[in-house]
């Protein structure tokens, strides 16, 4: 894409409005919400969010107390009632204010006024164990964003996610779009990752001449429905690469396997998530969070498939996985930062080949969305 799409604050703000506040976004893992009052907190699109389990019902609210704007839940993951620690306001499962200590004596708020107070709730959808949130006032069905085959694949694979989850965040100095472009370009693996990922996994780089030709044509249907249908093509996943020798991991007898032995699985939910499994016994999930035109936070999760029973060194397994993957992710981050560093307002437009048909289709859709009044 032209360099302005990676550099401009005005475009960054526009894409936050026209994409991120309209589509379904990764919100967290349901496996971290196993019981009543379990919660996770996130900042998504700049909005502090709490996602909490209320007797099995999982709901998302703005994590800001209606009294004095304190964060209601402070930890990233925890288990406690939805109650503000500042002055003790307590909220119920629909975000209603259940109790205000000394309400009549100190606040002079009557029953009627209290009933009007309610936390802002956000639509939340679960695909298997993966939670998606929407900040759209009129959210479209999640099936408009992800096709049925993709939903089924996410549902099936995530159903075996384990509840023990390792997480860290890397702070990348690049635009978030470089991440999805990099992930939809398997041709880079044998060059950039020749000493890491490419040693064990072979990726095909298909060329779809029909889609490549289509990407050069104008978008035919630019109605809301048409734009969503086009976006649906950008999310796909399944077995992508193959291992010459199926990987034997030391903990594979401790967990329930998922998928075909020897396959390398990749899922790419558009716009900003990547899930992968290279051994059928563990998964990594990367969430690319736009922070600024040249800043993206990478939240990296690791979890195994469901344990047959608890074992002492399970977190050491996850740490070994994290270190291994951060070698590959580190190579990706370094090259994306190198690309970002070279960008300037007069930088030449990239020369994309036919194999980059998917990135070209995304570019066509994205630039249409950014440069016109079209919406999704």
């Amino acid at each position, binding site marked *: 894409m032209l360099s302005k799409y990676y550099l401009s604050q005005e475009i960054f703000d526009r894409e936050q409005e026209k994409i991120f506040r309209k589509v379904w976004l990764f919100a967290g893992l349901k*496996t*971290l919400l*196993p019981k009543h009052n379990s919660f996770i907190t996130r900042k998504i699109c700049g909005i502090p969010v709490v996602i909490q389990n209320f007797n099995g019902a999982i709901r998302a609210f703005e994590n800001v107390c209606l009294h004095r704007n304190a964060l209601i839940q402070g930890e*990233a*993951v925890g288990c406690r009632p939805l109650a503000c620690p500042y002055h003790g306001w307590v909220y119920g499962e629909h975000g209603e204010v259940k109790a205000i200590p000394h309400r009549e004596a100190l606040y002079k708020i009557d029953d009627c006024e209290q009933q009007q107070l309610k936390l802002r709730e956000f639509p939340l959808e679960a695909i298997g164990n993966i939670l998606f949130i929407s900040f759209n006032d009129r959210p479209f069905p999640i099936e408009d964003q992800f096709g049925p085959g993709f939903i089924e694949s996410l549902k099936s694979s995530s159903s075996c996610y384990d*509840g*023990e*989850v*390792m*997480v*860290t*965040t*890397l*702070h990348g100095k690049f635009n978030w779009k470089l991440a999805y472009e990099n992930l939809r370009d398997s041709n880079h693996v044998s060059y950039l990752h020749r000493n890491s990922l490419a040693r064990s996994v072979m990726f095909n780089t298909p060329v779809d001449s029909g889609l490549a030709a289509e990407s050069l044509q104008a978008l035919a249907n630019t109605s809301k429905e048409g734009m969503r249908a086009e976006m649906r093509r950008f999310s796909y996943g399944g077995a992508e690469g193959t291992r010459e020798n199926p990987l*034997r991991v*030391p903990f594979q007898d401790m967990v329930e396997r998922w998928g075909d032995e020897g396959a390398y699985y990749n899922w790419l939910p558009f716009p900003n998530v990547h899930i992968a499994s290279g051994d059928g016994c563990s998964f990594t999930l990367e969430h690319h969070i736009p922070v600024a035109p040249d800043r993206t936070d990478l939240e990296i999760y690791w979890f195994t498939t469901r344990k047959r029973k*608890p074992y*002492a*060194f399970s*977190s*050491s397994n*996850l*740490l*070994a996985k*994290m*270190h291994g993957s*951060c070698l590959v992710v580190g190579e990706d981050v370094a090259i994306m930062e190198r690309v970002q560093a070279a960008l300037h307002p007069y930088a030449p437009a990239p020369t994309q080949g036919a194999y980059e048909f998917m990135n070209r289709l995304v570019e066509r859709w994205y630039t249409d969305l950014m440069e016109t009044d079209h919406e999704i």
Partner: protein
Amino acid sequence: MKSRWVVGGGAHLEHAFSAWKQARPEENVIKVEVPQREDYSFDLTVLDRISEAGGSMFVAFDERFGNFKRMELMQAALERGFKLESFISPSAVVAKDVAVGLNVFIGAGVIIGTGSRVDYNCVLQAGAKTGNDVHLKSSCWLDIGVTVGHGAEIGAHGILRIGAIVASRVKIGRYCELGWPRVYEKDIPARTVFDTRYEEPICVYGE
């Protein structure tokens, strides 16, 4: 002459072997390297060739895989009936009432304050200093020169790397790695890793 087998692998095996040899010139100190297969599992046949009746054993393996590999070797030695002893360097200053578990390594110049407890399979490298009433739970690894303040508790399998200082009365949860050279002034939840290759801590949630 009494035999003492120092078994394990890597750099720590070399350190422990030379430490035992210097400290016990009257013993027949033997280094036994335990090979690892491609999947990191130990080939324990070398242990099967040693008769447990002829002496005692010390297991020396570094902190890899959260100290679990050293524990695995220690368990293999115990299962085979070997007697395990701890090593306390003659230059270490260990208060008389300190309780020291099996297979602990206390290196040169280590200081351990009164009322402390060092559980089995811990390694305190040269110059590590722990205050009074400190509890190091099993299989911890304290690198050269680290400091643990009075009354602090280090959870099982904790790794404290060079430059780590744990303030007094702080509790570090199990399976933590304190790899950023800094003062840790607050309690750290179990399974938290501070690794210099990462900008943020690595956290583990759920079970």
